[in-house]
């Protein structure tokens, strides 16, 4: 699963009319644009001051304002090297000679007042989509959720299960002990990735792999002690997972180097998870068995 970036995108609304500020904010808040954070400025001068503290992803600005107008603000942003900040205009200005100046300074849209909500939304959606794309986290550790789903299905066969993305889960969310796998790519000296099954996932995948009835699996979950047969199946699962780990072009096949049941988490593992060079985190729920967690971490 791709790690979703849930940080709010920052939108700076610049207009000398509080009423227009309110309309723009209301329209954007009512739409499904993901988490947004707003800041308001009454003119270009105030907006330029806010840029360094607020670091907006998108500026929606009026054109005619006291002190510093919209075009001057845009030109100043570019002059000070802030080319990455997207700026769009909502304005009464229609003169082509002015609007072409805005476009040549990188304005991404110009909408005339009064505007239709859908016109503003269309432009803002496009602008924010490209911001979100740029802000996406690193590539996930696994090829895809579908690939993991297929792998679990081959392990569980007819036993129904549900795979639930768990982005941002911490090491402490995984119940001890952990079945910890280290993967290496052909020709590489350093490890490629880690795979972690918590004890519940070991019981569930192990019990499913052995096609056990629910009672012994629930008993193992309750005691926190998987049977040797369960651990054998869990290890087999982690070995197979090597085939669905994400690889860069040119990287050789990845295989399991070692797998161990560890009773305590160690600091290095925690810091590797927090560094997040690429992660895939899931919960696995099986009716009658219970729920476990797993994580794959790129190194």
């Amino acid at each position, binding site marked *: 699963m791709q790690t979703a970036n849930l940080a709010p995108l920052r939108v700076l609304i610049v207009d*000398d*009319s*509080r*009423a*227009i500020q*309110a*309309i723009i904010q*209301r329209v954007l808040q009512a739409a499904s644009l993901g988490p947004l954070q707003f800041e308001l400025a009454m003119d270009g001068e105030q907006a330029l001051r806010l840029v360094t503290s607020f670091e907006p992803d998108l500026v929606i600005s009026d054109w*005619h*304002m*006291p002190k510093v107008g919209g075009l001057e603000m845009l030109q100043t942003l570019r002059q000070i090297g802030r080319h990455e900040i997207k700026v769009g205009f909502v304005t*009464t*200005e*229609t*003169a082509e000679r002015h609007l072409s100046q805005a476009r040549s300074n990188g304005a991404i849209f110009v909408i*005339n*007042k*009064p*505007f*239709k909500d859908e016109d503003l939304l269309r432009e803002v959606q496009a602008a924010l989509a490209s911001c979100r794309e740029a802000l996406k986290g690193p590539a996930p550790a696994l090829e895809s959720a579908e690939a993991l789903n297929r792998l679990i299905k081959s392990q569980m066969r007819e036993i129904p299960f549900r795979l639930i993305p768990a982005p941002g889960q911490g090491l402490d969310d995984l119940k001890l002990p952990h079945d910890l796998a280290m993967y290496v790519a052909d020709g590489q000296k350093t490890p490629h990735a880690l795979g972690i099954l918590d004890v519940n996932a070991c019981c569930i995948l192990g019990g499913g792999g052995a096609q056990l009835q629910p009672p012994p699996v629930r008993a193992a979950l309750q005691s926190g002690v998987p049977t040797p047969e369960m651990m054998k199946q869990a290890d087999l699962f982690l070995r197979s997972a090597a085939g669905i780990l994400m690889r860069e072009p040119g990287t050789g096949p990845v295989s399991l180097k070692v797998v161990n049941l560890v009773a305590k988490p160690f600091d290095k593992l925690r810091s590797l998870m927090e560094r997040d060079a690429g992660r895939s985190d899931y919960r696995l729920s099986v009716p009658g068995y219970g729920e476990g967690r797993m994580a794959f971490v790129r190194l």
Partner: protein
Amino acid sequence: MQEGVVLSNLARAWSGLTGQSCAFAPSSDPPAPRADDACFMLPITDCVTGFSSHPRAIVLLLLGAAESQALAAAMFGLPPEQLSAADLQDAGAELCNILSASLMECLDDSSLANLGLPQPLELSRWPDLSHRGERRALFELSDQPRRLVVMLTDIHLDDSFCRE
């Protein structure tokens, strides 16, 4: 000037901001203001001079109390009782700004014209300003009892504005 286009743009502006459908019609004389009306002015300058103190035309807006409230309530998304006087003034000034953009069409040549910033106008100045210069357009909401009058006056050759 295509009067039909201007009238349609004015109506679109009002309905876009308030959600109320309406129609504008030409008028012959500016009305006298009432005590609870709100007035606004917006200068239009030539980019040759570029000084807001040296306008070539002005837009004047007169807004009835009920219309002021309806406008601000719609723009701020608040019930009328929660609106402040500053809210009414802010919304009215923005309406003046938006209507002015439509009225620019009424100038003989708007290619060098720049919109200035809208500002509240004291009621006492309305009678004088609304009768000075060369009136290019005067429109009002045609569905009574709504009260909204907007006008454009060309003051290019009227030196008295420049001396103020």
